[in-house]
């Protein structure tokens, strides 16, 4: 026995709360997995595996010159690269397992490692 009925405000708050909780499942259990490490490769060959929770800048030397990669709080991005179109820089941060960012002209690629990659392949 409840002793007291639910007010209209209670019902509204309950509906809102249910919606918030349901959307949390959608957002955080929607298949995305944040990675811990990223693999940096030059011309398809493994160069280094970096920890995404150790902030830092990596200078990676490719055929065209040095590309700079930044790791910050679980994410990684290109901050400079000697290519023409700067696609790699425009892609910005990547952080989910299986995500890839690459500077094709300089043959440098970065892939986030994870137990269950979100993407099988990526096309640009």
């Amino acid at each position, binding site marked *: *026995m*409840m*002793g*007291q009925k*639910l*007010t*209209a*405000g*209670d019902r*509204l*708050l*309950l509906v809102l*709360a*249910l919606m*918030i*909780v349901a959307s*949390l*499942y959608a957002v*955080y*259990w929607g298949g995305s*997995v*944040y990675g811990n490490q990223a693999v940096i490769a030059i011309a398809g060959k493994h160069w280094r595996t970096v920890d995404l*929770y150790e902030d830092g800048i990596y200078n990676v030397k490719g055929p065209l010159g040095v590309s700079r990669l930044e790791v910050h*709080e*679980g994410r990684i991005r290109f901050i400079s690269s000697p290519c023409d179109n700067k696609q790699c820089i425009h892609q910005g941060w990547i*952080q989910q397992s299986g995500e890839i960012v690459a500077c094709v002209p300089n043959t440098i690629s970065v892939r986030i490692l994870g137990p269950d990659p979100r993407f099988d392949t990526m096309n640009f």
Partner: protein
Amino acid sequence: MASIQSSEKDHIIAWLAALAITIHIIESALPTPLPGVKPGLANVVTLVALLSWGWRVAVWISMLRVLVGSLLIGTFLTPTFFLSFSGACCSLAGLAFVQVLSRKLPALAAGPVGFGVVSALMHMVGQFWAAYWLFIPHKALFHLLPVLMTMALIFGIVSGVIAARVVTNLNSNTESLSKILQ
């Protein structure tokens, strides 16, 4: 000898805080399947205080519970303390918000269950925020959030229902209550 005058409200705060601290300590001894998941029955006392005596009394009881509870368990200034402190602060902010809204829109005024749900969810948000920013700043922690919030929602409804019953009984026993408080 000078003595400090205590009002009836002070007595209410002392009694309810003592009750909340007791429940808080008993609950802290219960084993939990997940860190951060607790029935939060001590929150019933805060809800009753809010519904019967207003927000300020609820703040006093909530803060005394966190402070004295942690001193008695021995977790004062440890991570556990900061988790429950930030949880309590967020919960009280949520309660204040709902109370202000209830006054502005009487047609949509919240009852005990509404307050209970908001309080429990906000408590979890505060606790989670503290856990993330102060202790484990790893995004994988967010995978726990849906489960934690579901538990908070369930326990919020339960504590709201209990608080509703307590308030009804308090109202029908006002005389014996004021005797206790004298």
